């Protein structure tokens, strides 16, 4: 059921010319010949620092290979530059948190990863973003297929004005992932189960998705995103509109989803970043200030600005 857009990481570097990755039906121009670089130094750097007393970042775990590699990404909205030369590596099977004060560019950067900025006419993105070694901004990449591969969850739950079932079936339907009704039923059930919503909605799959509570709606939206089997899930402040109990459920869910997906989460809550993420990137004034293992960022940041932010001196 995977799309044939990117090579999955297991067959990378095989050197077999028939393995040339395809994207949107076209042979990609430049498959990286040298194979993926290993995780950068700070990505694999083992952290022996113990958890800080205030926040309890999870102990360092082995990180997956680099899934997304951004280099010198800048974004302009009209004349205004929203993002300045951001370079960051995002590992697979890991939760990466983007933190920083409002307007610091973290959501803007997130929207670059699935080319959602294309839908804003005045936005202009420069720099290079590679996913599994392929430039997502390349002309040969169809943003429609890219977005099928990179799911996104928004700040405000945005279920479509359809039934719960239809909401989850939306992606599989538009991408023609299933061949029969039974197949589709299976996908819907599996996605809802993975999003931890199945038990709550199994008896009312055909009632409107907009009738659910905020937390349920957000989990429905997550189920909708994972129904197309993406490789990456982007979350733009997914809990900012939810109460603490619904937030806890979503965070639990994010932790479970980490097993299978590369997750990038933008959050205003530093406690949440510490709870759910293994990697943290701190943005300030449209620049990436510091990135590193979450534990390290929260206990022993290298940058003064990061320390000031996480200790609440500004932001």
């Amino acid at each position, binding site marked *: 059921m995977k799309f044939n857009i990117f090579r999955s990481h297991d067959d990378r570097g095989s050197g077999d010319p028939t393995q040339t990755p395809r994207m949107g039906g076209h042979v990609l121009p430049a498959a990286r010949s040298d194979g993926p670089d290993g995780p950068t130094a700070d990505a694999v750097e083992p952290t022996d620092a113990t958890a800080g007393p205030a926040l309890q970042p999870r102990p360092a775990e082995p990180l997956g290979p680099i899934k997304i590699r951004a280099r010198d990404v800048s974004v302009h909205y009209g004349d205004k530059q929203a993002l300045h030369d951001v370079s960051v590596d995002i590992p697979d099977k890991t939760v990466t948190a983007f933190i920083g004060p409002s307007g610091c560019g973290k959501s803007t950067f997130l929207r670059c990863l699935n080319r959602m900025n294309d839908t804003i006419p005045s936005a202009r993105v420069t720099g290079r973003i590679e996913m599994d070694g392929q430039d997502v901004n390349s002309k040969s990449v169809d943003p429609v297929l890219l977005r099928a591969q990179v*799911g*996104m969850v928004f700040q405000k739950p945005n279920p479509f004005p*359809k039934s719960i079932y239809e909401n989850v079936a939306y992606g599989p339907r538009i991408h023609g992932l299933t061949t029969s009704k039974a197949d589709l039923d299976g996908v819907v059930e599996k996605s809802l189960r993975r999003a931890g919503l199945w038990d709550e909605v199994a008896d009312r799959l055909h009632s409107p998705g907009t009738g659910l509570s905020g937390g349920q709606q957000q989990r429905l939206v997550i189920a909708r995103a994972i129904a197309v089997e993406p490789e990456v899930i982007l979350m733009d402040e997914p809990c900012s509109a939810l109460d603490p109990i619904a937030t806890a459920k979503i965070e639990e869910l994010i932790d479970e989803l980490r097993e299978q997906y590369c997750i990038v989460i933008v959050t205003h809550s530093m406690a949440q970043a510490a709870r759910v993420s293994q990697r943290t990137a701190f943005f300030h004034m449209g620049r990436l200030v510091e990135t590193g293992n979450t534990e390290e960022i929260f206990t022993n940041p290298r940058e003064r600005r990061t320390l000031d932010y996480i200790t609440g001196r500004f932001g």
Partner: protein
Amino acid sequence: MSALLFLLPIVLAVAAFVAGRAVAHRRFDGVRPHSRPSQHAALAAIWVAVPALVVVLAAALFGGQVERGLLEADQPAAVVALDDIRRDAFYADVHRVAGGETPLQTWEAPLSADLQSQAVRAGQLDSIRLVGALAAALLAAAIGGLFAFSRIRPDLRARNRVEGWVVGVLLACAAVAVLTTVGIVASLLIDATRFFERVPVQEFLLGTQWSPQTAIRADQVGSTGAFGALPLFAGTFLIMLIAMAVAAPVGLMSAIYLSEYAGPTTRAIVKPVLEILAGVPTVVYGFFAALTVGPAFRAFFNGIGAQLIGGPLDGLGQYLMLVQNQMALVAGGVMGIMLIPFVSSLSDDIINAVPQSLRDGSYAMGATKSETVGRVLMPAALPGVAGALLLAVSRAVGETMIVTMAAGLAARLTLNPLDTVTTVTVQIVTLLTGDQEFDSAKTLSAFGLGLTLFLATLVLNIVAQRIVQTYRQQYD
């Protein structure tokens, strides 16, 4: 000259405002008043202007009657002998002579002499009336002004009083529209009742024969009058259906194009052009339909008919050869074009009101633009669009000019778009234009039709507004 009297309250109000402000400033020296001096001044201006205005209005409305009464109180015997209509004509000429014009009729002696003498008196009365009105208005203004100026004190709540007057004036303006509607409905109801006394309701609503010619003379034949309005309803419905078949898809799709696909430049050009289309008078659409579209369609169908005659479809060919300029298809099609901007601008608003988060959600799932429009935006906008279409239907039903010029007059119970049909509005126009007597079933039937049309569009509008409203609340 008496029109200038209406300037008097305005002049007085300005003077009172200026004076009132000065007085207020002087009296409030060193104290902190409840209201600002300009508010006291506005109150004083109101108290001066309103009495003066009332007097001037009364003089304008009743002055003529009083003058006529004074003239008649002392009129020559020859005038008394005239019948009412002739006496009215006589006094009309008296006023013309008094105003320096020539009389409309020649009055024989002794009336000619009476005309001159009465005209002299009327001239005197006119000037007395003018001076009197002026004096009375000034007096009323002075009394009001005295009252208002004596009350300019720091503790007077002038601001609240002025606000009260503002509310009153606004309410009066709003009431004009409401009361007019009530009046229209009442007159419609009264005349429709008179019609339904002559023709039973069920015969009117369900009868299939419409032939409103009634006998004027007793010996007239063939004009017994039949008031079955079903063919008219059918014609209205058919034309509405054709119009909506044109306007709904085209309007909706242009709205989708404008709101989802068009760039800012295209939008900046297409939107105003559509609005120009909305501003074209319906009579222009009417003659476009009657003089351009109608003949073109007839030529087209006649051409097809000529090809078919003699062949296996000879019957159809014969029919097509007989198609006329006036047909439901022409009137409905042109009306549909008229409704396109109406549908598209309403739908455009509604589609724009669908939250951006739904579009983002759909695009983020990897949906294309058309998938997003078809599967997310349209279902979300559907209730609102349905409301917009119902509003368009109610306009199509009430539209008059295009159908009058392009649909024809034959009341025929048919759903064939190539036939000549007639509509409720067309029949109302033909029943009430020209010289008509207003006590025959023929003319009164127009009110029956009008009432039916009014009720139908009222229900449509209420339902549509309700739908649009609930839709708007959904996303606020």
